[in-house]
């Protein structure tokens, strides 16, 4: 408070229009107003539509794999097709779905809104990132028709140099997609540094934004390494330069180092934004201040940093030196500490809260259950001697599905339901939302818990045929995957229903406190009709709601209106 200074702002409460006539959805008409939009909200929806499409494609491929595994020998497809399908399932889910999922879809939509900005710092770069993503996706689809790649999503040399499938076009797709990811990261960092509303200091930033900030740093630093790696791989195939090919003096294990130097940090590109969503959900639906704000915010940055130093834990039995394996194992465990800190802080937030088990909160609780299993099994495979036994078995498959699907996808679904009213202006059926969450939670465990057991018993991954002893567990897992698929169909049905028939959403159905809820549902074209001013933290549920709707009174405005408070 420095009332005497020249830049004193006059602020007052701005009421929210509960029946907005002008929203970002009707701000422009026609297909071109969508495909060439500079509005971060529309770009977010473009991304949301794209990732949904690829999640569907990757999901269908997964069900084909599970169906083939009903019997120990050939069931519906031959070995080569199986190998291509598991590769495409992995590549599509990783590069086209999960990496862009939370940051590019929900992040794009809500990052500017949560800081009270009109848009991201570089709207045109934002649009470019989506188009680059589409070009990358087209390349990936082209690679499927021109001889679908069969190397596994990791493209390990020398197999990827020798196979006759379309490795070059798929790696080129990955190369292009990387730029989309980098541009989003740059945009987020600049936006968070430069476009925050008056009063919104780093300590008042919603934790979702802290997590996107940490993610953006990894995207910018790690993705170029993937680009270089796949470029080298393509050159190896086209020109035979011999970096990885042992017959020309290259080293195939070098490829693994390059690949995981990106792909391990990339795991945190996938999971850290999910942490951010969970922080929002737990605080809002417990109607309570987040516990340990700085612990959660800084642990995201800690994970981003340590995540760069642990890539070698994918390679304990690859032939790297024993000393490297020991060092990497040691560092790996230290990712577990900040992750644990987050979980404990979330649970502590619920203490003495006012917990409402709405659909998004159910997803948050499902996340805590599944992600904790994913994290603890990560400790298991970080332990050197146990890793030797479990490496490249179904235990690993189960572990990363618990982290990536039980973690990121469940958080994405929680975020999707949480922000659905804001994005669409419609409410979905709470009843079907809860039922579907239950179906997905149970069937997810049915699908992947048996895979921990199979893996411990020694079932190797990427196996088309398997020994008879595993058939029972495989069949159980397959049945679980069918129910899981059904769960997603149910969700698609009630969400589409909500788009057309759902009741109108109020501006703040969950009584949340962050800025994204302080505007109409759906938001107007420029998010806010005024410049918001932030007085309180995003989780200050004990402060009166009207103090969260403050905005700058424009000079031209009528000075007879009451001034609620003054601040600098």
């Amino acid at each position: 408070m420095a009332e005497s200074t020249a830049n004193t702002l006059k602020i007052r409460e701005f009421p929210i229009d509960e029946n907005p006539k002008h929203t970002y959805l009707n701000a422009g008409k026609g297909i071109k107003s969508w495909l060439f939009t500079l509005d971060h909200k529309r770009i977010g929806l473009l991304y949301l539509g794209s990732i949904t499409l690829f999640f569907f494609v990757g999901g269908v491929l997964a069900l084909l794999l599970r169906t083939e595994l009903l019997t120990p020998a050939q069931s519906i497809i031959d070995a080569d097709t199986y190998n291509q399908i598991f590769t495409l399932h992995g590549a599509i889910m990783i590069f086209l779905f999960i990496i862009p999922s939370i940051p590019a879809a929900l992040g794009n939509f809500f990052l500017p809104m949560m800081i009270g900005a009109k848009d991201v710092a570089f709207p045109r770069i934002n649009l470019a990132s989506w188009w680059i993503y589409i070009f990358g996706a087209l390349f990936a689809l082209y690679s499927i028709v021109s001889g679908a790649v069969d190397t596994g999503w990791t493209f390990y040399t020398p197999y990827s140099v020798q196979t006759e499938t379309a490795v070059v076009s798929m790696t080129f797709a990955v190369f292009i997609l990387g730029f989309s990811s980098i541009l989003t990261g740059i945009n987020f960092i600049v936006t968070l540094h430069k476009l925050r509303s008056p009063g919104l200091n780093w300590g008042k930033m919603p934790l979702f934004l802290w997590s996107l900030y940490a993610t953006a740093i990894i995207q910018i630093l790690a993705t170029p390494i993937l680009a270089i790696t796949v470029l080298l791989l393509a050159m190896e195939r086209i020109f035979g330069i011999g970096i990885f090919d042992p017959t020309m003096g290259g080293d195939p294990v070098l490829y693994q180092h390059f690949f995981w130097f990106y792909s391990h940090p990339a795991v945190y590109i996938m999971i850290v934004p999910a942490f951010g969503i969970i922080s929002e959900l737990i605080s809002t639906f417990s109607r309570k201040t987040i516990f340990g704000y700085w612990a959660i915010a800084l642990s995201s940055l800690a994970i981003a940093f340590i995540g760069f130093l642990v890539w070698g834990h994918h390679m304990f039995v690859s032939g790297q030196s024993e000393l490297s394996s020991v060092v990497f194992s040691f560092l790996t465990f230290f990712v577990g500490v900040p992750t644990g800190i987050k979980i404990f802080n979330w649970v502590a937030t619920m203490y003495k809260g006012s917990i409402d088990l709405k659909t998004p909160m159910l997803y948050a609780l499902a996340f805590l259950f599944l992600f904790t299993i994913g994290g603890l099994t990560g400790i298991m495979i970080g332990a050197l001697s146990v890793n030797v036994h479990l490496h490249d078995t179904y235990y690993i498959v189960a572990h990363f599905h618990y982290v990536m699907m039980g973690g990121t996808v469940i958080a994405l679904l929680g975020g999707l339901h949480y922000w659905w009213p804001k994005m669409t202006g419609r409410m979905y059926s709470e009843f079907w939302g809860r039922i579907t969450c239950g179906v997905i939670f149970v069937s997810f465990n049915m699908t992947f818990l048996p895979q921990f057991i199979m893996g411990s018993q020694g079932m190797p991954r990427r196996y088309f045929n398997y020994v008879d002893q595993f058939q029972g567990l495989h069949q159980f897992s397959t049945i679980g995957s069918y129910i899981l698929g059904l769960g997603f169909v149910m969700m698609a049905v009630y969400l589409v229903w909500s788009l057309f028939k759902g009741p109108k959403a109020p501006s703040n159905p969950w009584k949340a406190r962050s800025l994204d809820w302080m505007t109409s549902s759906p938001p107007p074209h420029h998010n806010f009709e005024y410049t918001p001013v932030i007085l309180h933290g995003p989780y200050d549920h004990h402060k009166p709601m009207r103090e969260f709707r403050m905005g700058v009174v424009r000079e031209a405005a009528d000075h007879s209106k009451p001034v609620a408070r003054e601040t600098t």
Partner: protein
Amino acid sequence: MNRIIEYMLPPQRSTVASDVDSLFTFINVAGFILFAGIMITILIFVIKYRRKSEDDVTPVITHNSILEVTWTVIPIILILIVFSWGFRGFLQLSSPPANAYEINVTAASWLWEFSYPNGGTTVNEVFVPVDRPVKFIMRSDDVIHSLFIPDFRIKMDVLPNRYTTTWFQATSTGEAILYCTEYCGTAHSDMLATVHVLSIEEFEEWLETGLEIDEDMPLADLGRQTYTGAGCNACHTLDGTDRIGPSFLNLYNTERELVDGSVVIADEDYLRRSILEPQAEVTAGYPANMPSYAGRLNERQIDGLIAFIKELQD
């Protein structure tokens, strides 16, 4: 708990297995306690602090430094225990005793070949003595493979450009399964071998006689034995269906169109050339990825295979 762990793991059949399994058990038990604690706490909170009315007021609890330190330090202690335990086990796994019995392993897409110090070789089967350290010195002929024997808790990648090693000391006789666990293409999941653990006496005897070919066995029978023993069955079926290579059924004396467009008759000479130099005359429509069996099969085994293929007519 012990029952569950026992169900989850393969039998312990090497000297390192029990240490690996103890750590597996420790992490599972400690993890389960932690997990159950967190979940029960959540459940209690969800029930006890469920929303009673829309006007619920919650206390402002922003942080608690003592709690933060506690749940930072306790996990650090736990992970240090797990790390050092795993480290000790790993040291043991990567330090073969000096007196280990050495077997050279060659992996190729898609077979395992084992060469013994006395000069004999076996394919897709390896014979080892019980209660004696055995060291595998491994290399690959083509892409990366990985040797995994679940019962022994060992795994090591097999590289094309240098030797890697692994070792074990089996503690009981019998058979154990050996998998390839680094994805290597079409028949990756068929790249299995059997480990036969023999008593010391049986092993000595096997070394004397087992590697010799039974001269009295009829050629076609020897061929059938070689067909599975040398791993031909991974790619060639006997029932007319195509896998990676052509089926052996009705193969003999047919006209084969090669990739270069020429046509040859699959007579004895062609079959022999295809076994010894498989890349030289590849039938059109099949990948050129069969490994050469020159030096892997002896003359009588090749004769046996040809006789076996000749008999496969319906």
